[in-house]
């Protein structure tokens, strides 16, 4: 009997590995941690009216749906997603009981669960949704209006962070002047896709860091042909591409964290597929149907045919796998690659020297990345829920006390957590830490409201970053504390390109219009299919022109008009 049980366990363990191997990444949550420490002035006891941190007299229960990470093992023995240090803290501070009505693994599964909840009109009290879901729920009249609650209950810290987005965050949740959900605010670093490259391979083959797309192609060619991993086999990939179900480029709906996309190559041609741009006549145009995209596709097609881009892009189940295995030389992603997938890569090969650059440059010699909306996740409250203000109280508490939490239990266990980070968190942290290393600042000088991990970072940086401080190569890092390494490597290596000058390109809108709700899926499919086929050589480059016409015909023009209408407002 015991043996049977054991086998059962092993089977489950194997299954878990398989499941997570398939399900991880791409939707990998941005680890850029939420922000804001205690806002210095502790709110003095206000009378009952509207206290952002007020404790309820009688216990209030929240029924929530929670996204979880199936591989997470950070909960101590005996604790559960419903009863852990965070929920106990909430109970203690607010007298709020957490009840999880369903959980699903983060990403696709979670989205699907929310979609089902919407369709069956069986919503939890509080739920985190994306833009499309938010729109659907507002249309279905399923959500509570949070305008008043927000005014009364949002803590100054949260209001401050939201203000810093210059209206972008509030715009995303504004429906006819009503605030229908609470928007998150993420650091700008998530939006900028930089070039990650194996510096040790470059050095070995005596190559320079490629500045332009042509140089990039030359380096990729060398990576493929000159056996940079030295195993006498032609088994290396020049540039990694997206995995099955991944996106070739970010778009206005999912505008950040498109790891393994080919965005920087498009940007180098001043092509911004998936984004809404201002046309020559000042009217909005859709980025994907612009002639620059054709140029970029032509180049990508040429590079793919020459074997410089992963042959199995968009078919591979896990794009990170060749990076981890030391078989890929270049990929594109945001700053936080030090959290994933690089830790596994350097465990495999401690000399894998991944460095990030704000490259390749466009024809004007500038780096012109597309930028994201700071708000892509929303905390929504079910219509008819008696205590809509609980949503704000939970977030107030999170932002105030996050610095005091023991984050060895992942913050994902905080009920319905959405990220609040100052937009410049990464750049500011990097600057401050450099000053700490230079000795011009002490960790205790860095207790600045909003940047809650800064002091902790400053304390760890001298242990983790080895001299010389001006070099970021992998041999100048101490990897004993992988947690600290992940964060600091992300900030020093991934954050460095963020300090450089760039031409930011924003989409005119980051949310869907009415016609898009029913037509966009079809248009997007048309686009993905056409672009992939062109790049991978299954369709001629000229099919791009066909696509432009089809796109316009299949209600694309109508959508464009609606965007023009929406932007005017």
């Amino acid at each position, binding site marked *: 009997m015991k043996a049977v049980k054991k086998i059962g366990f092993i089977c489950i363990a194997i299954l878990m590995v398989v499941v997570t191997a398939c399900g991880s990444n791409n939707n990998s949550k941005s680890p850029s941690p939420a922000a804001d420490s205690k806002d210095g002035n502790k709110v003095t006891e206000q009378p009952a009216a509207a206290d952002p941190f007020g404790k309820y007299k009688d216990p209030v229960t929240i029924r929530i749906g929670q996204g979880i990470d199936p591989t997470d093992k950070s909960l101590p023995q005996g604790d559960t997603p419903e009863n852990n240090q965070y929920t106990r803290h909430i109970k203690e501070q607010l007298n709020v009981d957490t009840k999880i009505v369903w959980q699903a693994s983060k990403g696709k599964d979670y989205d699907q669960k929310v979609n089902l909840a919407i369709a069956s009109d069986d919503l939890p009290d509080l739920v985190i949704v994306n833009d499309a879901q938010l729109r659907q729920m507002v249309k279905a009249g399923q959500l509570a209006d949070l305008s008043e609650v927000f005014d009364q209950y949002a803590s100054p810290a949260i209001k401050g962070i939201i203000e810093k987005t210059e209206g972008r965050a509030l715009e995303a949740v504004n429906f006819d002047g009503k605030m229908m959900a609470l928007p998150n605010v993420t650091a700008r670093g998530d939006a900028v896709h930089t070039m990650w490259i194996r510096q040790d391979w470059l050095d070995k083959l005596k190559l320079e860091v490629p500045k332009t797309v042509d140089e990039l192609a030359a380096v990729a060619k060398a990576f493929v042909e000159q056996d940079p991993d030295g195993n006498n086999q032609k088994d290396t990939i020049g540039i990694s591409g997206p995995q099955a179900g991944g996106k070739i480029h970010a778009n206005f709906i999912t505008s950040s964290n498109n790891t393994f996309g080919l965005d920087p190559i498009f940007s180098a041609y001043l092509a911004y597929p998936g984004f809404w741009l201002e046309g020559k006549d000042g009217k909005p145009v859709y980025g994907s149907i612009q002639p620059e995209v054709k140029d970029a596709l032509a180049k990508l097609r040429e590079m793919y045919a020459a074997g410089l881009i992963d042959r199995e892009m968009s*078919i591979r189940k896990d794009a990170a796998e060749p990076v981890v295995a030391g078989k890929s030389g270049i990929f594109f992603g945001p700053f936080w690659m030090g959290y994933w997938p690089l830790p596994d890569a350097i465990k495999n090969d401690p000399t894998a020297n991944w460095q990030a650059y704000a490259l390749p440059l466009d024809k004007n010699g500038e780096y012109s990345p597309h930028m994201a909306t700071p708000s892509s996740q929303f905390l929504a409250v079910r219509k008819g829920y008696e205590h809509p203000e609980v949503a704000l109280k939970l977030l107030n508490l999170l932002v105030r006390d996050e610095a005091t939490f023991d984050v060895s239990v992942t913050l994902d266990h905080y009920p319905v957590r959405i990220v609040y980070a100052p937009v410049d968190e990464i750049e500011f942290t990097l600057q401050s830490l450099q000053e700490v290393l230079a000795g011009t600042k002490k960790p205790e000088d860095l207790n600045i409201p909003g940047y809650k991990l800064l002091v902790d970072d400053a304390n760890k940086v001298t242990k983790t970053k080895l001299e010389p401080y001006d070099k970021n190569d992998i041999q100048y890092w101490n990897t004993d504390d992988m947690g600290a390494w992940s964060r600091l490597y992300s900030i020093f290596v991934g954050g460095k390109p963020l300090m450089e000058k760039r031409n930011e390109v924003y989409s005119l809108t980051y949310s869907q219009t009415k016609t898009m709700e029913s037509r966009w*899926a079809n248009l997007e499919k048309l686009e993905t299919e056409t672009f992939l086929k062109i790049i991978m050589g299954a369709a001629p480059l000229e099919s791009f022109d066909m696509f432009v016409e089809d796109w316009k015909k299949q209600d694309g023009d109508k959508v464009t008009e609606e965007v023009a209408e929406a932007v005017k407002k």
Partner: protein
Amino acid sequence: MTNRGFEKHYYLMLLPGMVWLILFSLVPMLGIVMAFQDFNPGLGIFKSEWIGLENFKYMFLLSDSKTIMFNTIYIAVLKIIGNLLVPLIFALMLNELRVIVMKRWIQTIVYLPHFLSWVILSGILLDVFAFKGPVNGMLTFFGVEPILFLARADLFPYIVVGSDVWKEFGFNTIIYLAALTSINPALYEAAAIDGATRLQRLRFVTVPGITTTIVLLAVLSLGNVLNAGFDQIFNMYNPLVYSTGDIIDTWVYRAGLQNLQFSLATAMGLLKSVVSFVLIVISYYLASRFANYRIF
């Protein structure tokens, strides 16, 4: 048998099955009305706006509709043919095998993939057909350029059908083998005495003996003409092969569960159900006519 009390508890045993059927098959049929509505989950199926055939009109405007209809039927028909013929031939071959132990072993081994889910099998297949996978390894050995199989829209349906037949033929073989055991051995003896060769015995004793089973299986599989296998294709396809690999079920999944177009997805699903229903009625008629198969 006239004892009524005796019959009653048989009906009682039927109850769980009936409850299941009503809850999970009949009640959800109410949802069909969504196909004729602009379904709004907040209002539910009773109050959502009625838009008649609007969804169907849009559905037929989409260039996708024709593609997925064709793909579904094409892949399903190939699967039906493959799943009838391959196991039949295999069963006949296995039946001629004299060494019983060997026969049992083979039977069990070919039966194994049937128990693996497509989620797992598709992962394995993706690796097998990968650019550096074993199949391409073999091709390069013979001097052929490696092929990116799963990106080739022209090959995808055959990979799907081939792998499905490979997965299921062991199971279907068993059905045929069962039919083969029901053939009276006296017939073989008589044929042997009359001087029939092995091939002749196969042709004139074995094949006629299992014709009813073949016809029955063939006719019943008609009801599956619109089932091209969601879980298999969903786990194996990618945008590059949408043109030949996207089927009704995967399309409905994307429209309804990923893109929240509930009404459109329902309309497509309803169309599929209606066509399937007609086919099942036809297949039942044919089955009762040619194979004496009756439920009622």
